[in-house]
């Protein structure tokens, strides 16, 4: 499958002692975490603790100063890295959707497969329509992002990422900007994805969702991973006082 000899019994995403600073501000101070294919991993933690930075480092939107990140065995921060190859493997969904406002929902989904993968238009369009149907946006193909609700836009964004057939999906607080009513429709979509075996790394504040869906939960604070474990252990028997305090505030 893959030139690096990566096999699915090894972590699909692996971070080892990752350090990242913005100037003198140290944001990540030695983060290590492994994600296996098909796993759902949630990252929670207070605002400003470096969750977004962590997730952005995984698809090289941010660089790192120390440590290593591999995706399917490929070193992400290798200066010789073909970022294109990496980004074909990793899909990312943002808090603010970040759709292309001048393109319809269908065009948003079709653009990358056409331009980046250089696929044939008919095939791309067929798949894009199928993906929009999958995220329950049938009939909205020709709407522009500005004509869609936040939840609808976010589902277009998910379909847009899926169109690249990624091996891993990164979600950075994708429901944080949504109305409470529309949060659920996006969560349902993610749940279906996870159910199909998609590897997902999610930063989220939806604790119920994390408890139900996650294989493991990581709690970050001030640039380090304080504690991690399966949801049952994590929510009910957190060891670290920082975790317990955070959970008591949020639950």
């Amino acid at each position: 499958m893959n030139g690096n000899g990566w096999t699915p019994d090894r972590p699909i995403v692996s971070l080892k002692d990752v350090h990242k600073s913005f100037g003198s501000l140290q944001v990540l101070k030695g983060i290590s975490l492994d994600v296996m294919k098909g796993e759902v991993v949630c990252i929670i933690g207070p605002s400003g603790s470096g969750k977004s930075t962590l997730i952005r480092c995984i698809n090289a939107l941010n660089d790192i100063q120390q440590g290593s990140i591999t995706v399917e065995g490929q070193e992400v921060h290798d200066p010789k890295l073909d970022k294109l190859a990496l980004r074909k493997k990793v899909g990312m969904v943002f808090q603010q959707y970040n759709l292309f406002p001048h393109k319809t929902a269908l065009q948003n989904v079709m653009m990358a497969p056409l331009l980046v993968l250089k696929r044939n238009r008919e095939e791309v369009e067929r798949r894009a329509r199928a993906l929009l149907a999958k995220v329950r946006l049938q009939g909205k193909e020709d709407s522009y992002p500005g004509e869609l609700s936040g939840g609808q836009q976010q589902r277009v964004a998910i379909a847009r990422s899926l169109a690249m057939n990624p091996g891993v999906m990164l979600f950075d607080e994708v429901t944080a900007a949504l109305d409470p009513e529309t949060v659920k429709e996006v969560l349902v979509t993610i749940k279906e994805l996870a159910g199909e075996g998609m590897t997902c790394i999610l930063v989220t504040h939806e604790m119920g969702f994390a408890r139900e869906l996650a294989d493991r939960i990581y709690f970050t604070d001030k640039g380090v991973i304080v504690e991690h474990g399966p949801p049952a252990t994590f929510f009910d028997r957190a060891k670290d006082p920082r975790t317990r305090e955070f959970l008591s505030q949020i639950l």
Partner: protein
Amino acid sequence: MLDAFAQFFRDLAADAPRWNFIFFYSEKQAGMVLSGLWMTIQLAAACLLFSVAIGIAGAAMQGAHSRLLRALVAGYIQFFRNTPPFVQLLFFYFALGRLTPTYSPDGWLEVPIVSNVGWAIISLSFFAGAFNVEIFRAGVEAVPKSTQEAAHSLGFTRLQTYRYIVLPLALRVSIPALNNNLVNLVKTTTQAFVIAVPELLYESITIWNDYPSAQNPMMLVLFVIYLALVGLVVMGMNRWERAMRIPGYGG
């Protein structure tokens, strides 16, 4: 009918010596006005096209990694924005024109490869282009970084991101300012007069030098034609702005 029209203005010129509408009854002057108008239209259209191309290329270069490239563009803008276009025309034609090679179509006459019309187009395009670079730069800066990141995370190259995301969005933001600059450009084509480009002003002055009695009518013609030309440009730009409007986006 046409004879009566010509006769009316011939009589008017005899009765009112300051109102000699000579181009309405004399074919030669009518031809001069028309050929001047045609030259003005060609000049304006060519400069419009090139100055917009320069603006787009310049704004792209300002976003380049190379510091040298950015400094070059900055220097270009300073020079062309802060010196009179009149002087620029003289400089291009007399200073640079002397340095360019000539050819001899008939073995006698030495013809420079760039004519005065050519120099006018080059000079005025660079002049208006300097403003366009700034206009497009402001447009580019108005495109959210996050939208570009979404494109990168889908595997778009920098060039693809610029071509398909940044530029179309920046153009929409730039249209009002571009509108102003292009209106100015149409009016500035009159300055090509100084290097004897036979555009509308040049022909008009030639006519009133030959027939001082035609001076008032010629000025009238100049005002009316430039009002119409600028009106056309504004109408075209407004139509373009409407065509570019994205449903549900912006104002």
